[in-house]
């Protein structure tokens, strides 16, 4: 190992790193919100009795889950302008990531909805609950509890996947590290710093999600 580590070379670029973290978080949260809406429609479409609708949803999910994210992003950013749709890097990133995560979220939501058996609803009604109470306590609550861990994992995977949109020129965390590398030539230091940053972010979110799970699902069901 013949390399002088100089982390202080990164100090003048604190602003870039902070901007990168901000944009990464913004991209992740916005994409997750859109992907959940997309996912809900996909899940409902896939369970629909309309063969055309369920077939279209299944095609979408399989096409997205079996092609690389980078290719999907390049089609949105570099491909769509050929048919007159020009999106800036940030918008293209949000749309590309939402299309991608929407497919995964759709499958998670479908599994959650299907985990509730019709007999459970009947049991709820038999106990004298109203239709609203049955939906809230017997359908929605257990379904959300069942899919919560998978969605939390999907959120963390999305946060890591945002690094791919650096190739579109969107200035998120990885893009900033590559920029700093191109100015300081301290490759190891720049990438080590963001490795640690990604790790802190993901561990932070995992802890937050675990806390929310405990507060909402564990404590409440004990009470």
């Amino acid at each position, binding site marked *: 190992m013949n390399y002088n580590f100089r982390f202080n070379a990164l100090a003048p670029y604190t602003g870039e790193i902070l901007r990168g973290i901000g944009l990464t978080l913004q991209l992740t949260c916005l994409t997750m919100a859109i992907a959940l809406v997309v996912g809900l429609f996909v899940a409902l479409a896939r369970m629909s009795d309309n063969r055309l609708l369920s077939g279209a949803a299944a095609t979408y999910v399989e096409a997205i889950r079996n092609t690389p994210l980078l290719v999907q992003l390049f089609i949105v950013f*570099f491909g769509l302008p*050929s048919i007159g749709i020009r999106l800036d890097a940030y918008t293209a990133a949000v749309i590309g990531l939402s299309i991608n995560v929407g497919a995964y979220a759709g499958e998670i939501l479908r599994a959650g909805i299907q985990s509730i058996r019709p007999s459970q609803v009947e049991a709820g009604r038999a106990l004298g609950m109203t239709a609203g109470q049955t939906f809230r306590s017997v359908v929605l609550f257990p379904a959300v509890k069942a899919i919560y861990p998978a969605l939390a994992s999907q959120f963390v995977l999305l946060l890591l996947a945002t690094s791919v949109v*650096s*190739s579109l*020129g969107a200035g998120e965390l990885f893009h900033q590290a*590559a920029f700093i590398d191109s*100015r300081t*030539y301290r*490759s190891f230091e720049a990438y080590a710093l963001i490795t640690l940053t990604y790790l802190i972010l993901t561990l932070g979110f995992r802890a937050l999600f675990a806390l929310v799970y405990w507060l909402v699902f564990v404590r409440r069901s004990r009470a």
Partner: protein
Amino acid sequence: MLKHLSRIVSAVLLAGAVTAGPALAADLQEIIAAGKVRIGVPVDVAPFGSNDANNQPVGLDVDMANNIAKALGVELELQQITGANRIPYLATDKLDIVIAAMGATPERALQIAFTSPYAALSVGVFGPDSIAITSADQITSETIAVARGTTQDLLLTELAPNATIQRYDDDATAAAAFISGQAQLLATADIVAKDLMEKNPGAELKPKFLMQFSPCYIGIQQGSPELLRWLDTYIHVSQLDGTLSALSEKWIGTKLPTLPAI
């Protein structure tokens, strides 16, 4: 098991701490003894380095690399690289020599060593006739695509601090951004712009303004004085016997102007 692992890790870290020093590059004798030289050439900067129809690397820099390996009498191990990673490849000892249409700057010379120039180009900003600008300070709302970390990126950042500069991973992606209309202007070398126009009918890459006459230098790792001296000698002799000018005519279409030694 865990105890062993932590012992190994701390031993590795300790070894790193003790031997950390200037990078020990392979100097001339080591390269000759090894019988091979590792040279990096551009993958995406025609006519300096790109892939032909058979996916084989071709270009001025590729010819240079072949000539140098032949003159050294060793085998050539060619590696295709991009503008953004050519210095990291040297700094992390993945290559001995980089021949990648690279300009010299004092900042880069802190990390790597430069030989005398072997070719020349001008870097500038290019775009369609409809955009009427003639200098960096006239850029207002236009987006400029550029390959990250290249000479043109460094110059543009300095000359047009308020412009919207979109930095891409390499020259090919920056060119794709311009051709797909994601950027209105492209910062690149005059020779590259000309080549892009020939290959993409419809792409309008007229010179808007030139930022710098920029000779191309070969880069090597620091700490290889003998290799540096040998390369300078090789370039000097190739300039005198017309080899360099012939290469320039073959790939760029112009004779090589007289270039001062470094």
